[in-house]
């Protein structure tokens, strides 16, 4: 995996990694990995796993990302990071705005605005356990629990 990381920016990352562990690979390079290149959520993924939220990653962040995305990672851990990825404004809740972002990313803006808002309404209706109008982490986890495919789909093969 280190070689993958190194390949991203051979000029930035020295082979002897231990000598300078603070090297960061900019988001532009992370986002152009074949695994992430076409993922609609690539920017969010990079942001969530990078240390300061700007998408630039150290090797540690990089390893984190792929360990969470691996097959071995437990469901709760995956759910936690999936939640973070969908939480666009980082407020620890998935609110309607986050949902709209998600839907537009997923459908590349093919749906009309009222369709999008209807979807958000439905999703909130479905998953919001305590009826506070937004999805908290546990709402999300609970919902993920009911979607058995989640484990296999929230997974990036290397």
């Amino acid at each position: 995996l280190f070689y993958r990381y190194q390949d991203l920016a051979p000029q930035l990352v020295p082979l002897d990694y231990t000598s300078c562990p603070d090297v960061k690979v900019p988001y532009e390079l992370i986002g152009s990995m074949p695994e992430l290149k076409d993922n609609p959520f690539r920017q969010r993924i990079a942001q969530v796993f990078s240390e300061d939220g700007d998408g630039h990653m150290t090797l540690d962040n990089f390893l984190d990302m792929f360990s969470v995305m691996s097959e071995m990672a437990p469901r709760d851990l995956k759910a936690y990071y999936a939640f973070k990825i969908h939480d666009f404004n980082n407020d620890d809740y998935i609110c309607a705005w986050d949902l709209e972002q998600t839907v537009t990313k997923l459908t590349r803006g093919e749906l009309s605005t009222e369709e999008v808002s209807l979807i958000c309404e439905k999703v909130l209706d479905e998953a919001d356990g305590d009826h506070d109008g937004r999805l908290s982490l546990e709402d999300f986890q609970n919902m993920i629990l009911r979607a058995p495919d989640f484990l296999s789909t929230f997974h990036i093969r290397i």
Partner: protein
Amino acid sequence: MSAYRNSAYEEDPDYPDYSGFRNHTPGYLKTPGPLNNSDEPSTRSSPYPAESRTSPDYLGSLAEPDYPGSQNNPAYGGTRSHPYSAGTDYTKPLAEPDYIGSQRNPYQPGSSGEPDYSQSQRNPDFPGSKGSGNYTGSRINQDYLDFVGESDYPGAEENLNSSGPRASSNHPGSRRNLEHASPRVKAYIDSLGEPDYPGAESQANYPHFFGEPDYPGAEDHQNSPDFWGEPDYPGAENGHDYGSSEDLEMARQMLNRTSSVQPPYHHEGVSPLGTLGREDVDYPESIEMQSVEMANPYPGAPDNGYVNPAYVGDEGPGPAYGDPPLSGHNWLTSPQGQKLIESLIPMTSRDRIKAIRNQPRTMEEKRNLRKMVDKEKSKQSRRILELNCCAQCLNSISLAYRRFKNNLSELLSSISLWQKTLKVIGGKFGTSVLSYFNFLKWLLKFNIFSFIVTFSFIIIPQLTVMEKNRLQFTGLEFLTGAGYFTNTVMYYGFYTNSTIRHGSSGASYNMQLAYIFTIGGCLVICFFSLLFSMARYFRNNFINPHIYSRGIAKLIFCWDFTVTHESAVKLKQKNLSTEIRENLSEIRQENVKLAFNRQFIRFSAHVAAWVVSSGAAISCCVAVYYLADNNLQFLENHSNPGAVLLLPFVVSCINLVVPRFYSLFRLVERYEMPRHEVYTLLIRNIFLKISIIGILCYYWLNIVALDSEECWETLIGQEIYRLLLMDFVFSLADSFLGEFLRRIIGMRLITSIGLQEFDIARNVLELIYAQTLVWIGTFFCPLLPFIQMITLFIMFYVKNISLMMNFQPPSKAWRASQMMTFFIFLLFFPSFTGVLCTLAITIWRLKPSADCGPFRGLQFFIESIYSWIDTLNKRRSYPWVVWIYQNLIGSVHFFFILTLIVLIITYLYWQITEGRKIMIRLLHEQIINEGKDKMFLIDKLIKLQGMEKRANPTLFTLERRDSEQWGSLLVRQHDAARDLRFRQSFQEDNPKA
């Protein structure tokens, strides 16, 4: 003394906390409160004395080591006068009898709980105070609650420093105190109705040190608008409650302390957070002890919020208030982190690693966490017993073993089959198609295992005594399996019935027993691995199917991250949007009922489809039966060796054509849900295939076997070989010709059809069919797993190529993992159990052919076992085997009892599951209720705030903090709710596990 402290306080320029705190002061600057000392004595009778009392204690303990000896309050009061005489202003209040009286009231524990806070919080402020000093200080505070451990207290000299702020806060002379005091006074005038409140100033600093309150109840908040006030105050208001919660807390604290909170203090210096972090480490520990209490809705975060900005300086108060995971580095030092560390310590190393791995933290934090825990652990173990050489040796061995295992698994994964191909498939077609290939791979592993077992236990021994094969080899044998192959290790008939013995002294090898035990063992292992994988899939994928809803949410949040090809992503996005649209329109039209006649038409269409499909299946079975029946005569009349291929050819044709015919029904039936369509198709197909196999088995066992041909086992083996091979050829042809033609038609001629989609259900059923044949055939033809291995291997590549060339990704979201469970279930239930039945009949009821195979000359196959037991019995060499056989396997009573026990256990589990279902429902209701409560409280709070704002707009900043507190309260509530839910899911896991 007080003067000294004051000066210390002011001299200290680095006191970041203080300055930080002063940011808030502007709001409080107008101080109407009476601040002069002369009032103080009178306030001693107010609920606050507790506050001032604690500080005197503190002083007293510094001055006087004997102090702890006094257990009861009056004595306490007496000793109190001691330090106070040294002080300037405080003598009077101490002399005050009211004061002592107030000490005795229940409020006491509350107030005594307080020093912990002030102290532990203050300590880190002072760079001069050592970590250990802090620690002892806070620890003593715990003891202090019990009035026992005070003797330690004076020992820590640094406490003098750390007590500075507190002392100054008590000291009315300090200017700043005056400033800070004002808001407090206001608050208390409201809430307590205490007009004479000069004592307030002495406490004024407190709130700032505490940052956030430890309010036991929300009511307290509402009483005192000054929310960020300090814990003592609510305590004063409802002393009883507070006291009781403190009691609880005390118990917990003691517990905590006796467990291993302590060590982190000692090695915090090495902790990766650096020197700043060092104090950080200290501090939450002591806080944490208190934060365990239940009554306290938000113990951790507020404290955290207080310390972090002051000391680490790299984060604002916002994150500290938010969900704990947000708080970055400091998370480790937060109460949650400490709690986690504590809980990690007693675990075994493997559990610990697992638990750490499951934390949603970054790598660095995990590493730090592990370091801390390890140190903790080594500390403990060193304390208990020094590691001796042996243990070290063991340790290093286990470490080396772990490393070796890691390396090995790395190596294995690197050579793991088809990793790249699977990735490409997943990237282009998504998880659902991938699941077919995974299933194929899984079956391949199964067959490799069976082959290894049969090869090593049956085939190798037979090869050592093989006779020369005199039959001629022509090419056709590959298809028919007859001829040359008849006299090879491939078939049952070739195996010897003798005991193999090389040389006169070599160990003997009884072929009969080897044959029956190998096949039996193979099947048993298959049985268990199937059972376990099925159970695992069930647990993962059907955790709570009863609340399975249609779920747009799932569509949205279950984006397939495995898909990586650009065009595939675009296609998927498009499909997703159409699916969402369909879903929406369904929701819109949900209430529109179909007219009666349309319903009737649909219903009759279903019935007709079912009738036609089962009719087709039955007629196919009948055809196969008659064909097979006449096959024997037909073969006698035809000398052409290729004639034997007729039956397999027909069966494969049926298997090829009828499923496609079934899938045409979709045009007539028009299911609303794609899932229903898939399931119906699956049921029909499996019905067809299993009944064909059943008919063939009947034919083999009842006609071929009873006809007593020269070697009927070999004949059956050949037949199965031919079936398998024909099936393989057909699917090859189908992939290369059928799918290719379909593509050409779709692309060139009728472009409206477009590319076809990969039919996962049909393909998987083909695999299941072949696997069933292999299992049946293993007994008659031990090499069948090997053949199946090869065919699966080829199939993988063929399907892969065909998929890449001829198909497009599926448009519907497929519940791949659920379907996988279903497939494995199908593989287990009709197919594997059917195989077991067939083989059982063969072994117990049929007469082996007289002059071939290992069982020749016996009445039944099973008699080989009987005779073996008999010989053992006579020889008395292995009495336990005989005993097991006679008392367990051969005994009816044993099975009766076993069945009874299993039934009872099943019933018990069923009841437990039912109970948990009720529990889950109740907990769910509770969550909803809590949500409502929360909303209600927030509403009320907002109202109150509005009122307050109108009353006094200068309190604006205060209210802002309030709302932050509320935020953190909400976070707590959420944590609790998540806890509940986690437990719920855990409970659900359990019965199935």
